């Protein structure tokens, strides 16, 4: 059985995964336009400033879009059914994640969720979310 994919941090994303190892959600914020930015970049996609600082965010979000996965590839088959969501952080950016719950069918769009770091295989802790 193949194992689940895990992130391979690189120079651009290391600050995210270093913070994740401490249980902290850190993303970038642009000094040029004040927008929060996710995923990590060299330049801001809003104003192209290269002054992007790493800042801690609350980890509070709402479910923006949601699917309950019933069929997936081998490494995820044991988890079926499970909930994958796009969540919108309080600070603005959206992230893909899995919402951890025993009752995925009760989840609804707009539900509040909170980040919950947990490891997957040998990789760094992943930013899962759970109902808040």
């Amino acid at each position, binding site marked *: 059985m193949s194992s689940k994919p895990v*992130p*391979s941090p690189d120079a651009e994303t290391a600050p995210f995964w270093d913070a994740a190892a401490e249980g902290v959600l850190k993303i970038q914020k642009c000094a040029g336009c004040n927008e929060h930015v996710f995923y990590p970049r060299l330049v801001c996609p809003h104003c192209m400033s290269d002054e992007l600082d790493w800042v801690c965010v609350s980890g509070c979000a709402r479910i923006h879009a949601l699917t*309950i*996965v019933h069929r997936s*590839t081998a490494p995820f088959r044991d988890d079926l059914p499970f909930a*994958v969501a*796009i969540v919108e952080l309080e600070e603005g950016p959206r992230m893909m994640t899995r919402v951890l719950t025993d009752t995925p069918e009760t989840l609804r769009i707009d539900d509040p969720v909170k980040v919950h770091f947990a490891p997957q295989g040998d990789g760094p802790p*992943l930013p899962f979310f759970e109902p808040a």
Partner: protein
Amino acid sequence: MGANFRDAVAIAGVAESEVGVLPHRTEMQLHAQAAKRALDDAGIGLAEVDGVLSIGSSRGTRMPSVQVAEYLGIMPSYSDSTSLGGCSFEAYVQHAAFAIDAGLCNTCLITYGSTQRSGGAGFGGGTDPWLAASQFETPFGLPMMTGAHALAASRHMHLYGTTRAQLADIAVAARKWAQLNPAAPRHEDLTVEDVLSAPMIASPLGKFDCCLVTDGGGAVVVTRSDRARDARQPPVWLWGSAETHTHSSIANMPDLTVTPAARTGPAAFKSAGLMPSNMDLAMIYDSFTITALMTLEDLGFCAKGEGGDFVSGGRIAPKGDFPMNTQGGGLSYTHPGMYGIFLIVEAVRQLRGEADARQVSADLALVHGTGGALSAGSTLILGKEPRR
């Protein structure tokens, strides 16, 4: 409006390769088979081809136009492997038009070939390890591409009350059209109940909300308008065109209910000097039922949020008042990874009056391709008569 690069060209030939389950074929054979058939259709010889526009399959062929040109024996003066996923071919028609209008070449051959069904490449493939999505999306196990479209569908239902039964109407209509197409693989009846009771893949999308997974290829010949007039078949004219992309991964889609068609539709209609109500036929990319529903809204055939009502009641089925995806679509005809070339082939056949039992009365057809996770879009407006 003054001279327009679109007036410089016409589509002179179209063809599909064999389609279906083709374990005995390679991808290059399907490119070549379709190319030969399309050139035969046009009555244009290989020696006249001086533009090659080809894309590799999701298995990742490098330098696709170079590979195809070598295999066919072409040394082109215009070469293009722009990768917009499933809508690359609609974009290629536009690129061919401006390359020909600019004098870079005279006759462009657009080709596609994929053995994704028999070759074992999963639909949509994986994420390149150097992309951010490999760190921030792939680990969460969303099945691609179904999962991405399911996320969009969930949002559309949440905002507009769109129902699974309305989405099912799209699959049912596609099957009814496929029943009129001898080349389609499935002719058994499909009802809304069948669609709703089929196994869920990623909610709210079930098995019949998803396109077929097939092998196959296609080709289109675009040539100078004067050459097209002398070709074997009546030319089909390019009235309008547009292309765009708005994001790559679904998590970065600016609005999960608004597809790239919201940009390319108005642009293509403006370039053609036409409106949605002028269209006699719509060939709309239907990788999933939700893809077609949102695209219809974004092209302006109905208001945002009203797609569910629009596709209900048999409107898009045979004998309905909005002919759409008349060969059965990706849902019930064929979908070898990238489906966009088949939209062009069917639109041209309809405009030439070659569609037999499924023939509709059409002078103007809209073709809209979609690529990636609702990422890219390209719209063509094609006419039986030239624009001016």
